[in-house]
């Protein structure tokens, strides 16, 4: 257990509404990541952070923004949710001693 929590765990929202997902870690890890998982695609990187206020895009960043105002929290925002953003979202941290990543429990988001 790498001390990662995600909230909410489940959410149903309507097309066009804004949505924010939260990832919280308790162990002061510098690197944090957001991935999405869809059938047939495995997990794909959306955005990542390498420190407070330091973020960068991943493979599938269109339609998403992120923020990291303090070490322990990494927020993922869908400014205007679309049905194609229905997915399971996972947050991850990189362990301080190396490159290994650990994942949170996931958030299942349904956009109707």
């Amino acid at each position, binding site marked *: 257990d790498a001390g990662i929590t995600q909230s909410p765990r489940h959410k149903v929202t309507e097309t066009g509404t804004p949505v924010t997902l939260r990832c919280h870690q308790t162990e002061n890890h510098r690197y944090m*990541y957001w991935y999405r998982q869809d059938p047939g695609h*495995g*997990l794909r*990187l959306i955005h*990542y952070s390498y420190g407070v206020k330091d973020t960068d895009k991943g493979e599938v960043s269109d339609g998403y923004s992120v923020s990291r105002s303090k070490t322990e929290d990494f927020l993922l925002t869908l400014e205007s949710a679309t049905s194609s953003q229905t997915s399971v979202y996972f947050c991850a941290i990189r362990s301080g001693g190396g*490159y*290994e*990543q650990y*994942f949170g429990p*996931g958030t299942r988001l349904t956009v109707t």
Partner: protein
Amino acid sequence: GIQVEQSPPDLILQEGANSTLRCNFSDSVNNLQWFHQNPWGQLINLFYIPSGTKQNGRLSATTVATERYSLLYISSSQTTDSGVYFCAVANPGTASKLTFGTGTRLQVTL
């Protein structure tokens, strides 16, 4: 970007059987991880193995970095081994951004 291929895509085993899962990747890596996603969706770390061999109980893994592949061995399989096994890799100097394969779905039957 780096490509990751896993085989086989699906596998059905009887309890007690052994299996080998393969992960091929297209470029040099400084991170290779194997994960088990259980039926509840949780991603469980199995191995961090950018090179060499490791063992943990009934599971072992080998990565031959020079030939760009990794193998996950499951011996004496149990029903609790069912789920999806993912291989994920990262290139050096890329902030450890993981690229995942599409997984091997394993079903262990009684």
